[in-house]
């Protein structure tokens, strides 16, 4: 058995990386989702809209720009799935979870910053996504994903 491993080292390495990628990736993903859900439930009272806010005279004490961003990367196993997907087309399920996590995390960080500075709501939310990293935009390579969420946090003149 060991003979086969030594005869085809690149194949064995490939399989080993796949297994490591899969296990660590799944664990990291589950942990991240738990953390996201917990923080979302805590911050759900902080209102976020993507409309422009219209406020009455004197209703607002102060307002400032807040943003939150994340850069997330996928594990080896998921990258392989995405590449194989390219043959058959269809939904790239491996990447859906990644983007979802990245985006929710970015929004949460923005909310946390607003909450820390005492804001009551966030208006005019915008979301941006891009690929960065050394391997982004190169042929047949997959980079990491950066998500940015930004908006105007408003502190109301509450009595």
């Amino acid at each position, binding site marked *: 058995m060991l003979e086969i491993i030594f005869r085809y080292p690149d194949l064995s390495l490939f399989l080993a990386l796949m297994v490591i990628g899969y296990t660590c990736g799944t664990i990291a993903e589950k942990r991240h989702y738990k953390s996201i859900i917990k923080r979302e439930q805590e911050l759900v009272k902080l209102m976020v809209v993507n*409309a422009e806010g219209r406020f009455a005279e004197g209703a607002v004490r102060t307002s400032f720009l807040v943003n939150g961003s994340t850069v997330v990367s996928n594990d080896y196993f998921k990258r392989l799935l995405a590449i194989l997907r390219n043959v058959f087309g269809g939904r790239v399920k491996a990447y859906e979870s990644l983007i979802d996590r990245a985006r929710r995390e970015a929004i949460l960080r923005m909310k946390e910053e607003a909450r820390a500075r005492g804001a009551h709501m966030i208006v005019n939310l915008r979301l*941006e996504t891009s690929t960065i990293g050394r391997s982004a935009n190169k042929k047949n390579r997959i980079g990491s994903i950066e998500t940015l969420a930004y908006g105007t946090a408003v502190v109301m003149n509450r009595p």
Partner: protein
Amino acid sequence: MASNYLFKGFSMILTNVGSVPGKKIVEHFGIVQGSTVRAKHLGRDMMAGLKNLVGGELKGYTELLQESRQEAMDRMAEQARQLGGNAVINIRFATSSVAQGAAELFAYGTAVRVE
């Protein structure tokens, strides 16, 4: 009268302005988002390669992106329905390429209830 978006038997109003023209917003629920990542397959790739020679519309890709946009909107409307809203205002779309040969379609807006 705003046209309704029918999906799963529900009628959801979608607009990309800050209100539903002609209706009053009574309740709002926050941000809803829908996204999907789609890859092209080899057949479309080869046709696109050919079109690079002769020029013209890449119908395969147009259809692909249209389907993806539809799915992203469906997912966003589903979130709004779960929250109890019947309209989504201020819809914005974003497209980005996240992996070789795959594009992410993303739609987000504010879920509201109008009367």
